[in-house]
C-alpha cells in the first residue's frame, strides 16, 4: 500500500509540474488562435528556438541558464513579429488550407535552419544554479529544483499574461480584435498591429517556456512536433482562446501523460504479474491525442472556451 501511495504521489507531482510548463507552451498558441483564428503548426519550432536561445546564452556567454529566460522571451517576440510580417499576413488573405500549409512550411523551414546551424545532436545544459539539485518532500518523493522552478516561473508568466490581457489597454484592444476585428477597426484599434502583437506575445511566452524546459529536456531540431501536438491538445481541452483554460488544461495534460506511471502504481498494488508494469509507457502521448479527439467530438468548446 505504501509503495502504491508513493508511486501515485510521484506520478501526480511529476504530472502537475510538467503540466504547468505544458500550459505555458499552450498559452502562446491560444493567444494567437484567440486573436486571429489561425492555427500555428510551427508552434513547437518556436519552442525549439526558445530552447536554443537559452542554450546559447548558457554556453556562449557562460551565464546561468536562468538568464536565458529573458533572452528567449525577446528572441521569441522578435520571431513572432517577423513571422507575422513575413508570412502570416499573406496567408490570412487565402483560404484555411493556405494557413495550414503556410505554417507547416514555416515549421519545416525553422526546423531545418536549426539543423543546418546547430546540427542534429541533442544538447542540454549541464551546469547552472539549479541543474542537478533536488530536495526531498516526504519519504521517497524527490523533486528536482529545475522542474519546481519551471513550474513556479510558468505560474508567474501566466499571471503576467493574464494581467496583460485583462487589465491593460493593450489587452483590451487584443480582446476586441478577437471578438470582432471589423468593429475594432471602427473604434480606432489598429488591428493589423494587434495581430502582429498577438504573434509577438505568443512567441515570447513559448520562448520562455522553451528556456524553462531546457533545464531538464535536451534540445534538438526535431523536438518541436511533439510539443506542437501537446499544445493543440491542451488548447482544445482548455477551450481555444482561453488563458485560464490553458493553465488548467496544461495540468490535466500533465496528469494524462503520467497515466502509465499511475498504471504501474496500480499494478504494484494488485500484483505486478497480472497487470504488466511498464505496459502503457509507449502510449503516453496517445492518451493526450485521444483526449484531444474526444474533447473535440463531444465538447468542441473545450472546458472553459468562449469561442468556437
Amino acid at each position, binding site marked *: 500500500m505504501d509503495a502504491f501511495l508513493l508511486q501515485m504521489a510521484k506520478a501526480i507531482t511529476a504530472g502537475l509540474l510538467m503540466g504547468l510548463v505544458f500550459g505555458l507552451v499552450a498559452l502562446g498558441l491560444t493567444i494567437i488562435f484567440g486573436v486571429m483564428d489561425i*492555427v500555428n503548426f510551427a508552434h513547437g519550432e518556436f519552442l525549439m528556438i526558445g530552447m536554443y536561445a537559452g542554450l546559447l546564452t548558457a554556453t556562449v556567454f557562460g551565464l546561468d541558464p536562468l538568464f536565458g529566460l529573458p533572452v528567449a522571451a525577446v528572441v521569441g517576440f522578435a520571431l513572432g513579429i517577423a513571422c507575422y510580417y513575413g*508570412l502570416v499576413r*499573406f*496567408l490570412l488573405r*487565402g*483560404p*484555411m*488550407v*493556405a*494557413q*495550414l*500549409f*503556410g505554417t*507547416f*512550411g*514555416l*515549421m*519545416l*523551414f525553422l*526546423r*531545418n*535552419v536549426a*539543423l*543546418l546551424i546547430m546540427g*542534429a545532436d541533442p544538447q542540454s545544459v549541464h551546469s547552472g544554479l539549479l541543474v542537478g539539485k533536488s530536495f526531498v518532500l516526504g519519504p521517497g518523493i524527490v523533486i528536482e529544483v529545475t522542474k519546481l522552478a519551471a513550474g513556479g516561473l510558468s505560474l508567474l508568466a501566466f499571471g503576467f499574461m493574464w494581467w496583460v490581457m485583462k487589465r491593460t489597454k493593450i489587452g483590451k484592444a487584443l480582446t476586441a480584435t478577437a471578438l470582432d476585428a471589423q468593429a475594432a477597426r471602427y473604434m480606432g484599434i489598429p488591428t493589423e498591429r494587434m495581430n502582429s502583437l498577438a504573434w509577438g506575445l505568443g512567441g515570447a511566452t513559448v520562448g520562455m517556456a522553451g528556456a524553462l524546459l531546457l533545464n531538464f529536456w535536451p534540445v534538438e*531540431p526535431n523536438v518541436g*512536433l511533439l510539443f506542437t*501536438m501537446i499544445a*493543440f*491538445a491542451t488548447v*482544445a481541452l482548455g477551450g481555444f482562446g482561453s488563458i485560464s483554460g490553458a493553465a488548467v488544461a496544461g495540468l490535466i495534460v500533465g496528469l494524462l501523460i503520467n497515466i502509465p506511471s499511475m498504471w504501474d502504481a496500480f499494478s504494484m498494488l494488485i500484483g505486478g504479474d497480472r497487470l504488466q508494469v511498464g505496459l502503457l509507457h*509507449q*502510449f503516453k*502521448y*496517445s492518451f493526450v*491525442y*485521444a483526449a*484531444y*479527439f474526444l474533447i*473535440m*467530438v463531444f465538447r*468542441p468548446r473545450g472546458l472553459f472556451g468562449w469561442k468556437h
Partner: protein
Amino acid sequence: MEALRQAFDFSDFPRTDLCVAVAVAVFLFVFPALPHSSFAMATMIQFLMFSVYGMGWNTIGGYGGQVDLGKAQYVGIGAYTTAVMQIRWDLPFWVSLPIGMSLAVGWSFIIGYPLFRLRGHYFAIATIATSLILKDVFESWSFIGGARGLKIPLRAEMPDFWFLQFREDYYYYYVILAFFFVGLIYLNWFRQSRIGMQLRCIKDNEEMARSLGIDSHWAKIKAYAVATAFVAAVGSFHACYNFNIEPEDVMSLDLSVLIALMAMLGGAGSLWGPIIGAAILVPMKNYLGAWFGAKAGLIGLDLIIYSTIIMAIAAFEPRGIWGIVTRIRQSRSD
C-alpha cells in the same frame, strides 16, 4: 454502362489539356525503354505512387474541401496487411490488396463518423491525432514487428507476378502505372458523379448543401472512404516494392503532409492537380536531397529550399499551380 461511358468522357476539358495529357501518357508508357539511370527509375515510381496518393486525397481534400492530414495511417494499414499476410500465411499480393483496402475502409468508417463532426482546423488536427495514435499502436504491437517493422522474405523465383517480386524495377513501374491509369479513370467518373457534385456543393457552402437536402455528413464519410481505398492500395504496393516496412516509414506525419501537399501544390479540386504536384515535388525532393545530402555541412538545405517554395505557394497562390494556369487562361480569354 452509363458510369463507364462517363468515366472515359473527357470532353469537357479544353483541347490543349487533352493533347498534353496524351503526350504525357505516351511518355509514361515508353519511359522504361528510354535510357535512364536507376535513380531516375526510382524517382518515376515514386512520382506515380504519390500521384495516386494525391488523387485519393483529392476526393476528400480537393473536391470536398476537408483538409485531411492523417492519410498515412491508411498507407500503414495497406502496407502491413500485405506484408503480414505474405509473411504469416504466404498469401499473394492480389489477395491481400483487396483485404487491406477493405480493412482500411472499415477503419475509415469507424473513425470517420465522429471525425466529420469537426470542421476546418479542428478536423485537420484530429486526423493527425488519430494517425499518431494508430502509429503508436503499430509500434508496440509485436505480432506485426513493433517499431522495427517487417521484412518480406525474397522468393526463390523471380519475377513473381502473384507476389509482386521483381529484380528489375520496370515491372514495378508498369504495375503502378496501371494503378495510376485506373485511378485517373475512376476519378474522372468521380468528379462528374452525384457524390462529386455533392462534395463540391459542400465545399462551397455546407449550410446551403444541407438545405438542398444533401446529407453532408454521409457524403463526406463516403468520399473519405474512397480516398482511403486509393491510399491503402498504394500502401500495399509500397510493401512489395520496398520489402521493408516500419511504422516510422509508412505512418509518419511527414508522409501524411506530403500527400496533402502534393495535391495542394498542383491544385486541389482539379483532375490534373495532384499529378502536376507530384511531378514537381517528388523529383525536386529526390534530386535536391541527392545533391545537398552528399555535401557535408549542408544537411537540411534541401528541405529549406523545399519549405520556402511551400510557403511561397501558400502565401501567393493557394489554389496551386493549376490556379496559375486557370488565371492565365482567364486573362487570355478576356
